[in-house]
């Protein structure tokens, strides 16, 4: 395993969390959440990658060929599905917030309550 992809992962998590903490706009905040999640794709790919490995389709190559790990793509795909569900739900909340209260600022939403 190389160290470089892991530095990238930490960087992506860092900027994502920074974005969520400083954002004043819900949609922007949700996008930052997606950024945090996308770090897990990079991590999964980095974990499964094998330098010089072939694609794991053994129909036209000998079964003993070194290939990259096929499991991580299944994990990443599941991860994408989860993300799609969470993002869609969160964006629908944001739309409702804008429709009903005319604001997408999390601080305003919090202070106007009650």
């Amino acid at each position: 395993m190389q160290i470089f992809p892991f530095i990238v992962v930490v960087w992506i998590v860092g900027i994502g969390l920074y974005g969520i903490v400083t954002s004043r706009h819900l949609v922007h905040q949700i996008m930052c959440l997606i950024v945090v999640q996308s770090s897990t794709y990079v991590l999964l790919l980095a974990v499964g990658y094998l330098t010089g490995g072939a694609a794991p389709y053994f129909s036209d190559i000998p079964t003993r060929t070194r290939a990259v790990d096929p499991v991580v793509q299944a994990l990443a795909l599941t991860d994408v599905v989860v993300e799609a569900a969470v993002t869609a739900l969160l964006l629908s909340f944001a739309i409702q917030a804008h429709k009903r209260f005319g604001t997408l600022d999390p601080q305003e939403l919090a202070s106007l309550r009650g």
Partner: protein
Amino acid sequence: MNQLFALAVTVPLAAAAAICALRPFFDRRRWLLDLAAIVTAGSVVVMLALIMARVAGGDQVYWFAGFRPARGVAIGIDFEAGSLSAGLATLGAVLVTASMTFSRRYFERVATYYHALMLIFLAGMTGFCLTGDIFDLFVWFELMGVAAYALTAYRPEERGPLQGALNFAITNSIGAYLSLSGIALVYGGSGALNMAQIGAWTTRHPGSRLVVVAFLLILAGLLVKAAIVPFHFWLADAHAVAPTPVCVLFSGVMVELGLYGIARVYWSMFAGALGHQYGLSRLLLVLGAVTAVVGALYCFRERHIKRLLAFSTISHSGILLAAIGRFAPLGLTGAAVYIIGHALVKAALFLCTGIVLHRLGTVDEVRLHGQGRRLRATGLVYAVAALGLADLPPLTTFLAEGWSDEAGPGWAVAIFLACVIVTGAAVLRVGLGVFYGVGDPPGEDPQQAREAAEETGETVTGRHHTPLSMIIPAAVLAGAAIAIGCLGFAGLGAAVEAAAVRFQDQGAYIATVLHGARIAHPVAPFPAAEASASGASVATGVAVAAGSVAVALLTLYRRRLRLPGLYRRRPRRLARPWPRAAMILEGFQSGVINDYVAWLVLGLACLGGLIALIVH
């Protein structure tokens, strides 16, 4: 017969899909919709109870599609059921059944997706408890999460639910992604996703830095779910605004599932590699103590009843984390029994609060003072459940207090008992004031009243009768707490302790899953006296309950006794009499997601630093 394992999750999922598909049909036949949901949840209870009976003699493993492991390598995906995991899943299903029955009359009009979401939530809980695959653990976690976010925002036309759901969803999602990162790392090291196989690998690589980092990340994600300080902020926001029958599930099992996840992951994957380190145990103890104190302080100063109950859940979650963190069989026994007792009485309390909202139209303690005198049955159930929360024998919780404190240092025991007294007093204060009119009539502060009035709209209010379908589930749950507490005198403790010893035996877990071994539960591993209801536990329980009643009466008559004002206000508009430290505490629960995530990052950094220090 083995198909029960698969059916326990596929039945609720299929029922949820069918309910959505047949929506136009169900829209006109509300009773059929309720019946379908209650019957589905009830059938899951039966299935899980059958599984519990079957695993009483020893854990069982179910391999989906029959892909059994070959030579210690897991090929398929498994469900692993032991007494503790199946028991927790059963508890969840019982609470879903109770709250679906309650919802029947609670919601005048309800969209079909409410029932579907509840059933998906149920499937998520069951899968989370039973799965033996770490990636599936994440998927069930997220399935449960997405259903919970949507249920929180069940009334999206109001500001509170939207904001609570957003905070809940964003913090919990970040937690889940941290867990997933940990899972990816441990997969990269071991090449396995099966928890037993990973456990076998980590045991061969003790002290590996990768294992420590993976443990930290998975732990952090589960701590968010378990609402441990400083990851707890989302909980009160979500609980205050979610519909009451949903709060029953959130407080009763969802938070506890986070703690169960920590125990499961630790003892299946990391116990061998990390060892039962004194430092790690101390860290969890301190985290638990801080959480218990913070939860109790907020709980005591709250006047919104649902929020008050939510803060008491945070406090109890801290006590449970410390008990699990003892890494001793007696600690886990205490935690398991405490989870049962707490879930039953907390659910009953939330259901009673729902009835109050249904009948009287508010959950503000001050406005309700003396208003609930007519609700005799509700008042009785509430009082019994509140005393149960304050450890009164024979309600289950008193059993656990002694066991979970057994191995702890004296200062921790004192803190936890004090927290139980304070939260118990807060809950009793509400009961005595609302249902029996005890105490000084409150003076009204219009600004505070406005701040407290964030409920409304979730049920049609001002009804003249309490429907039986609302009071019976609450009474049954409180009665179950008494019945199980009485079992404590008849050897419940020894049985749970045997299950706890089995749960903590990583070697036996690996052998069961990977090599198909049939290992019976150890019989009476400890002197029976140690794990049964003793005179000391009864005495402690009575003393704690008496202390709670005393503190509750003191706060109710605070004006006559010239004690300072009680309730917390929103930040920036603080009352004088409270010390500065309390004012600083107020500012934390700001309701702004940015602050919560900042705390989460800070907490993660501190946790990482401490674990790095401890392990090396």
